């Protein structure tokens, strides 16, 4: 089963470099890529160079859910110490899958993930947590039958001593949570859940934070807060990888961005480069916000 629809194959931009131009569409894509190569660097050698000093890096990841169907088709990604990385892309591109694969929630079929030089491919999530990685899933990101407070307690599972201190911290970010600390998360509104999810990941003071659409469902006010907070945390030295559909905002704050399509890196570059790239705008960002 091929998940690539015929129509989008043609417009599919750069494959991952010149190594494997297998299909006719790939040749077309290379031409396109050449055109935009000033802004969007998709060269694998560039990746390799940049990845040398990376905190977290993925090389040629191939992963999927169902037997025989790969969702990630060899994506590369690295993030340097203290960097804020954004990942954008159409729905179903594999962004969430990429995060899950890095975090040990989807089985990686080939390729490697390294954290600070250590191979963490297919390592269990809880082991990564103890190595300082935090993760906010896109869906199902709270424990519905636990209260808000217990949800946060679970966030601090490995560092129970720090719970009080961190609780005060997240309560200040999202005052709604403190008021409702005894409410079961299952009865929260969509946005409130999102707050709990975000707060839960912040309980441990991770050194690498993976955020999957943290702003979805939040009110504009809180969306601001999330983006500011992400930057804030990043400034404090935390490496952040953020998947966002609020793409423009995301690219505005991130140091570098990746555009993922069909499980491959379509474009990479600095946030600003990507945000201004007409091709990226047309295919992934839309013009609504500018109109």
């Amino acid at each position: 089963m091929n998940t690539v629809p015929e129509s989008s194959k043609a417009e599919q931009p750069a494959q991952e470099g010149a190594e494997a131009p297998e299909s006719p569409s790939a040749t077309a894509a290379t031409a396109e890529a050449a055109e935009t190569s000033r802004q969007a660097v998709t060269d694998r050698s560039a990746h390799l160079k940049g990845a040398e000093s990376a905190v977290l890096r993925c090389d040629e990841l191939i992963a999927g859910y169902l037997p025989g169907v790969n969702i990630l088709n060899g994506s590369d990604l690295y993030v340097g110490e203290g960097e804020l990385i954004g990942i954008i892309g159409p729905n179903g591109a594999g962004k969430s899958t990429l995060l899950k694969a890095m975090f040990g929630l989807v089985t990686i079929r080939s390729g490697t993930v390294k954290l600070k030089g250590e191979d963490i491919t297919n390592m269990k999530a809880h082991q990564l947590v103890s190595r300082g990685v935090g993760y906010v899933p896109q869906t199902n990101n709270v424990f519905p039958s636990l209260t808000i407070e217990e949800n946060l307690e679970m966030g601090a599972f490995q560092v129970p001593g720090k719970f009080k201190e961190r609780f005060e911290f997240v309560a200040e970010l999202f005052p709604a949570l403190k008021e409702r600390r005894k409410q079961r998360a299952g009865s929260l509104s969509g946005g409130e859940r999102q707050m709990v999810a975000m707060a839960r990941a912040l309980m441990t003071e991770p050194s690498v934070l993976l955020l999957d659409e943290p702003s979805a469902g939040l009110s504009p006010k809180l969306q601001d807060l999330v983006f500011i907070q992400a930057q804030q945390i990043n400034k404090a030295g935390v490496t952040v990888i953020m998947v966002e559909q609020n793409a423009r905002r995301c690219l505005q704050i991130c140091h570098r961005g990746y555009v993922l399509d069909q499980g491959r890196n379509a474009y990479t570059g600095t946030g600003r480069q990507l945000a201004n790239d007409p091709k990226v705008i047309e295919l992934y960002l839309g013009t609504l916000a500018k109109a």
Partner: protein
Amino acid sequence: MNGVKIVVTTESGQPVAQVTTNAQGTWQVPVEKAGRYKVTLDVATLPKNAAVRGGNNVRTPTVYEGNMSTVLFALQPKGAPGQPAEEAGGEGSFWTQAAQLAFEGLNLGLIIALAALGLSLIYGTTGLTNFAHGELVTLGAILAYAFNVGVGLHLIPAAVIAVILAGGLGYAQDRFFWGALRKRGTGTIAMMIISIGVALFLRYVFLIFFGGQNEAFAQYTAQPGIEIGPISAAPKNFVAMGIELLVLIVVGVALLRTRTGKAARAVADNPALASSSGINVDRVIRIIWTMGGAIAALAGIMLGLSQNLKYTMGQDILLLIFAGVTLGGLGTAFGALVGSLIVGLFIQLSTLWVPPELKSVGALAVLIIVLLFRPQGILGRRERIG
């Protein structure tokens, strides 16, 4: 009763014999043919202060060839009403009986609750509807029996060893079996059917090694009851109930308060998210299996103590365990306690009105009725829509 006149005739009224009772109040008439006879006691010959109970002084026994047939005239002091004395105190005896049954209900309810707790824990954390749980209950009892009767230990150390061992087996079960299945991504429905397979397997292993008969522990069998108010119960019942209640409360509170307890509930809600929060999901599940196994074993020992051991003992109460768990609200520890107590009480108390052979009907009907009004069980919570 001496000197009472008895007249024996055939069914059609032909006289056969007439005798008077001897000093012990007995008499005998040899008859020639098999058939139905009519025996009449001459009331006039009874002592002044005595009367035949029920007032009927005629009996029509059938005598068979080569056999004796006995006829009995029960006597009572004259003037008393026709009913036996103990039936007269209807009201009092109703409440005595109710009290006794309520006690029995608690006794049974606590055992069910203990078994239900183990089931509920495992269901709660892994989503597995474990039809083999009854066999884990049996396993506990049989292990204790092995150490008690087989090895010759006193029941108490034997029970302790059995509980520990069963805990270990619970651990091993998850470590080598259920855990491996989870890793393969086996769905909960498939696991449920697998648990039916496991139940079959274990049950027949028990049958092969333990045999099909009833057995009892070497100690505390048929312990005579003591009377406490309207209730008569064996001392072992009180001790057992104490232990059961203690375990239930300790485990229930631990689940609510301790970190591992909360982690267990977190795993129940969303294993992937739990793992993402730094919880070692496999470890939590293993702890739960260990506890579940140990608690089920304890329940089995208590059941064996209060009743007897048989290879189907767990299977026989499995439905009640499920009823208890469901009634209380699936996956909640205290729900299992409350639900099971209600099941236990209803089973016993319903016999005040329905024949005992149908006593389970009462409890099961209550289950259905309660769920009508509270579809999420007594302590369960409704889910939010949207």
